[in-house]
């Protein structure tokens, strides 16, 4: 009988350890605790060029992450990139003349959407649109322009 009860304890400890491991992975390792889809709202921004932006790229305002990119698609009528941003609902006081720009974190870092608040009294609501946008700076394009310019100057 003594033997069985030790065995029970060991199995119990093993299962508990396994479940603690799963919880550790869910809470400490992944983003489950920080940001969930439920309490967020979606706004759309149209960019002439969204560069290397991807779904799940961060959306930040004043350097703080407040949401993420939930979808990107191409509009075949206006030839623009339509980016859906899902913003944490605790930040629901963004003015409706907010500017969205695609920035790069560091020289070669990942791209993210930066929101800069305007001065309007009205707030952006779920399904709202950001009118003023600034495209991503494409490194190749910028380099090309720079080289072209310096060649012009030499003539």
């Amino acid at each position: 009988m003594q033997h069985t009860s030790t065995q029970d304890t060991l199995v119990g400890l093993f299962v508990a350890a396994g479940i603690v491991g799963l919880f550790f992975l869910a809470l400490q390792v992944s983003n489950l605790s920080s940001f969930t889809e439920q309490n967020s709202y979606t706004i759309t921004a149209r960019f002439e060029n969204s560069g290397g932006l991807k779904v799940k790229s961060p959306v930040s305002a004043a350097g703080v992450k407040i949401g993420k990119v939930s979808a990107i698609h191409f509009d075949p009528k206006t030839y623009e990139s339509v980016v859906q941003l899902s913003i944490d609902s605790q930040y629901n006081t963004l003015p409706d003349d907010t500017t969205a720009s695609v920035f790069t974190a560091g020289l070669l870092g990942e791209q993210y959407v930066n929101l800069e608040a305007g001065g309007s009294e009205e707030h952006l609501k779920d399904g709202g649109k950001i009118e003023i946008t600034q495209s991503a700076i494409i490194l190749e394009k910028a380099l090309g322009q720079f080289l072209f310019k310096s060649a012009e100057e030499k003539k």
Partner: protein
Amino acid sequence: MIEFLQQLGIKTRTSFTKLGRGTFFLLQTMSGVLSVLPRPRLLLNQMHSIGVLSFLIITISGLFVGMVLGLQGYYTLSDFGAEESLGVMVAASLVRELGPVVSALLFAGRAGSALTAEIGLMKATEQLSGMEMMAVDPIKRIISPRFLAGFLSMPLLAALFSAVGIIGGQLVGSGLLGVDEGAYWSQMQAKLDFQDDIINGAIKSIVFGFVASWIALFEGYDAIPTSEGVSRATTRTVVNSAFSILGLDFILTTLMFGDH
């Protein structure tokens, strides 16, 4: 030439017959799983010998794999000044790939081979036919509890492996190499998704647990009842499990993470 073709035909046919027997065996085992539930003691004993006794090898291997990943990742990432991403690298490789795969390989080597040898020996010493004589179904009494125990233990072991590995990576990364501890965790949390990474990793480990337990039990049950037969069956368990785990891992990875 004719003989060669004949041999080839026999080989193909026997392997298909074996696959058929294996599938039939699996169905029998799964239908026997329900009759384990009224006797939790059987399951508990097997959880002990399959899960608890694999605990040590899994956690220690996980710790070392995580530490090596931390060390190796640091040398590569520091060339690009991206040491801060060490946490992402360690966690993503562990949760997505190494956790489920390495723990399944260890599981097949540690628990699978023991299962095959045990059941093969039971067959060789006619304990299984003895049970049948006493109108006890050996599938329900012997095989199903072991199958269920393996199936339940594997995801827990894989989660432990990944968790311990990530801690090991952190120990080496921020303890030894000076990566910022906050960056290690926060970058990891920002990059790893619960659904895409953790759940998919868990699905992998469930599939591997299912397959590894099935192979181990079937090889034992199907072993030629001699000492040589049991030894061959044990070898086959480890080899076939390793092949199936790695092959399935490739398929599951393309299905789960193919697009990013």
